[in-house]
């Protein structure tokens, strides 16, 4: 075994995580290599320091303001749901309004959405496209969505892209925006953002916004393959920070 190979194996060796034959090879090398013995001692000291100080850093942690209230709200809302399916369908999002409770208890998403159309003036859509389908998707997403779950925070405002759905005809980006209060203060068009394929923006087709949940579904034209995709939102009127950008990777 070379010195370099031994050094890569040292953390596993020190923790007793090597199998017998590999452990013996490392031990045989150490028996006649003073430099690697010194290195082993240094790695051991370094590992102890990292573990000790990381723990101390964690133990000194204090909760950010409002965290407990947020957790209590989350526990109550989750507790109100009647089934794992409903929860799974909704996904989880902090700051979600009480409004979701009603939805979460319904097993049939279509039936729920139909009810919502008549009862939720806060839900709005751009370009007059079908609201029912949009609400169902806002709730649970489509089956062939690619999970993203990436967030970027600037000036306390967090853009989180939950997922992207690709098809031959269109690309849908599902995101939420938190830290700005209600989305109601913004125009629907402001929330469209831009989907860049490389440096080229894809054409915007539709924006659907659910104000109570802060969840937005934006539909663009079809994305080319093998081109990196970036979703960019903002800057938004009277909202600090921005633009917010999330790299989405490539169309699969």
């Amino acid at each position: 075994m070379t010195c370099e190979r031994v050094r890569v194996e040292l953390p596993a060796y020190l923790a007793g995580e090597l199998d017998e034959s590999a452990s013996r090879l490392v031990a045989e090398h150490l028996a006649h290599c003073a430099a690697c013995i010194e290195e082993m001692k240094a790695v051991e000291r370094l590992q102890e320091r990292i573990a000790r100080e990381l723990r101390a850093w964690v133990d000194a942690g204090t909760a950010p303001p409002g965290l407990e209230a947020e957790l209590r709200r989350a526990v109550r809302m989750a507790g109100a749901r009647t089934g794992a399916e409903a929860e799974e369908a909704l996904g989880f999002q902090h700051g979600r309004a009480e409004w979701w409770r009603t939805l979460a208890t319904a097993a049939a998403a279509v039936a729920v959405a139909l009810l919502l159309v008549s009862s939720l003036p806060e839900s709005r859509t751009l370009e007059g496209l079908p609201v029912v389908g949009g609400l169902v998707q806002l709730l649970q997403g489509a089956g062939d969505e690619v999970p993203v779950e990436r967030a970027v925070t600037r000036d306390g405002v967090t853009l989180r892209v939950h997922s992207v759905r690709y098809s031959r005809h269109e690309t849908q980006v599902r995101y939420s925006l938190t830290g700005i209060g209600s989305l109601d203060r913004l125009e629907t068009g402001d929330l469209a953002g831009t989907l860049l394929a490389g440096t080229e923006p894809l054409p915007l087709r539709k924006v659907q916004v659910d104000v109570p949940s802060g969840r937005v579904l934006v539909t663009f034209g079809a994305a080319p393959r093998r081109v990196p995709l970036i979703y960019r939102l903002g800057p938004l009127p009277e909202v600090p920070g921005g633009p917010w950008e999330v790299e989405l990777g490539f169309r699969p």
Partner: protein
Amino acid sequence: MRGRPAAEEERFFELLRPEQGKLYRTAWAILGNEADARDALQEAVIRAYRAFSQLKGGEAAFPGWIRRILINQCTQILRRRARVIPVERPEDYRPEPAGVIPEHGEVWEAVRRLPEHYRSVVVLRFLADLSLEDIARTLDIPLGTVKSRLHTALKQLRSALTEADAERRGAL
């Protein structure tokens, strides 16, 4: 609340209160950003609350129990991330506001400046106490890659901490 008495909720949050800050930092360290840390913590707290009546070992076991639930939640998020193309996320490297860096923050500062693929290995190893094989499974990478990442990360940390130690000595 599915008929749960308010007293039980109060007891749960009384036990949680002294742990919240630690759990938050644990999730932050593992996931690398505050938004994901909040999500993971919320999901872990919901799970813990649902299983609270089954907590074995009495209330003394609560901190370790909920920490384990949180770490499981964080590793699930990392596993999901491993299935998508990795990108460097700018918020991970945002410096902490002046005055926030706490005592014992030197190692954390060095760790958080590591590139994501090194940082996650270090934190899973030294904070979540995972074996190298468990880290490989969590991140969906070969064991050899975990070993080489840890090796490189330790080299970078040693260099950063040596520099920080020298600076501190110079300032005295």
